[in-house]
């Protein structure tokens, strides 16, 4: 992949923050990725939808950051929803038995709807 190794695109839709992640979520990108998500949680964003549809793959370093972010959001009485968990990324969630650790929605719109309930 010639594109940047990792990129986050954020958009605030009223009370919900949508973060689109691009690239790879691995040992070289996990810290930057986790720091940004932690900053959003610390800033009081209570509802975060993280779209993984443009992520090529997630290694255990990346899953660790997702689990930490999920816990941090819960501790702040917030919620994290994942969407775009398809293809190779979904297979990695399955292999690692991570599917039941997260709120996973098919699309951004589903995630936003779920977090507004």
């Amino acid at each position, binding site marked *: 992949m010639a594109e940047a190794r990792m990129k986050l695109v954020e958009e605030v839709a009223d009370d919900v923050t949508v973060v689109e992640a691009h690239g*790879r979520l691995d*040992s*070289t990108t996990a810290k930057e990725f986790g720091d940004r998500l932690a900053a959003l949680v610390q800033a009081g964003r209570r509802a975060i939808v993280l779209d993984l549809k443009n992520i090529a793959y997630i290694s255990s*370093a990346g899953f660790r950051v997702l*689990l930490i972010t999920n*816990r941090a959001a819960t501790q702040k009485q917030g919620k994290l929803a994942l969407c775009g968990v398809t293809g190779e990324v979904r297979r*990695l969630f399955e292999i690692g038995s991570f599917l039941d650790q997260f709120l996973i929605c098919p699309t951004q719109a589903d995630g936003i709807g779920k977090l507004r309930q």
Partner: protein
Amino acid sequence: MPDRSLISSQAPSTEIRIANDMCEIERVTELVEGFGAGHALSNSVIVALNVSLDEVLNNIISYGYDDTARHDILVQLAIGSGGVEVIVEDDGKPFDPLAVATPRPRSETEVGGVGLHFVRSLMDQLEYSRRGPINRLRLIKKLEHDDG
């Protein structure tokens, strides 16, 4: 098992030496992407190689060394009719990843053991040997007919 059971010595291959620094893994990822594109490997195979190498190299860099010196890690890739072969050599502490048990029960943020579980699940064959001061890990990813 002979070292080259799947890959002949004339097989197309490439290699890279990286330092024991986490950001160096990106160079390996780029090598895999280029190798994969050059040999028309499927995305599934490229992901398997990249995730496995990320896990193996992260382990070596995180836990392999008692000093703070720079160490080289060698990564070799080769392709033959049997599949893709990956060899990783480091001069860190003796560590046989195949001897590590299945993942521990995990807490909310604990992924201990999952990395090697990924390697075992994504690759078809794993062999470890210690040769003098060198850990040598050999991984094989078989290629299906519909791959690539």
